């Protein structure tokens, strides 16, 4: 009976035919659609809070280091290119080249996270924390001198650490996923021209993370 029900519920066409993509890729795209909504909510909240803030926002470059983050942005863009080169290499049937580019992507992503951690430590040392500015710190003196707006520093800190923190978490997940694929699939030579779905799917996730950072870099660090 249950077998008959399962048979009746089975679609009358192969699952791949709908959007003309295989199921793993479709699953990743649906996940990414949910991620667009997740980051859309974070960025939307930031825009709303900043638009309705009770005063001016801190000017770019006073609290955050634009130069370091611009380098980090460039690093993430480079890792996106190396990821797509890994995909192109295995699509052309060159697993050695794929291994090289995948390793470059992992290193690039790990460096991005490392630099972000360094940035966080530096910011906290200067007194920039999620609740705003720590009393007695270097930034607290700037607030007292009027170089930073006291009224909005709490919002600034909470939105900055929430958005960049969640993005950093996504990058970390991406690096760990790629490392797992590199060790368990790429190095043992399990990817081929006929089967390299894992590389394409993790690549989609990685490019999405890069895409989100492009928007975050502009609205958080430059505006």
């Amino acid at each position, binding site marked *: 009976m249950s077998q008959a029900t399962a048979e009746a519920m089975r679609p009358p066409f192969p699952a791949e035919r709908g*959007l*003309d*993509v295989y199921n793993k890729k479709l699953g990743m*795209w*649906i996940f*990414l*659609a*949910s991620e*667009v*909504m997740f980051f*859309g*909510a974070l*960025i*939307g*909240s930031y*825009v*709303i809070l900043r*638009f*309705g803030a009770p005063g001016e926002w801190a000017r*770019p*470059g006073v609290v955050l280091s*634009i130069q370091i983050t*611009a380098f980090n*942005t*460039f690093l993430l*863009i*480079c890792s*996106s*290119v190396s*990821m*797509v*080169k890994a995909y*192109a290499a295995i*699509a*052309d*049937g*060159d697993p050695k080249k794929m291994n090289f580019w995948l390793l470059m992507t992992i290193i690039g992503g790990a460096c991005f996270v490392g630099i972000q951690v360094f940035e966080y430590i530096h910011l906290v040392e200067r007194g920039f924390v999620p609740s705003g500015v720590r009393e007695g710190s270097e930034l607290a003196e700037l607030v007292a001198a009027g170089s930073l707006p006291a009224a909005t520093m709490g919002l600034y800190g909470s939105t900055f650490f929430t958005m960049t923190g969640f993005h950093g978490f996504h990058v970390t997940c991406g690096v760990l996923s790629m490392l797992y694929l590199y060790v368990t699939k790429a190095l043992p030579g399990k990817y081929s*021209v006929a089967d390299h779905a894992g590389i394409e799917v993790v*690549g*989609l996730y990685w*490019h*999405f993370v*890069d*895409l989100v950072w*492009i*928007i975050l*870099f*502009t*609205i958080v*660090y*430059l*505006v």
Partner: protein
Amino acid sequence: MATTHKHPPYILIWVYLAVLTAAELGLAFELPISRNMKLLLLMILAIWKALLVGMYFMHLKFEKWNLRLLAIVPIPLALIFIAAGMSEHIW
């Protein structure tokens, strides 16, 4: 056996992205343009970069229209959310 397929010009896209990032960095410094103009230019550059990544690295340019629709359909929802939230400050 390695075979070569026709791929998009990934390195060229990387150069575009690097140049656009440099342009954004230049705009971050004090320039003789209004704040609104700077904001507009920065947003155009960011969207341009995001489109390059989406179209070429995520291959949306080469996918069917219904998969592209799946990718972009949450964006209007986010914009509606922002507009609704901002209306609290306007009215």
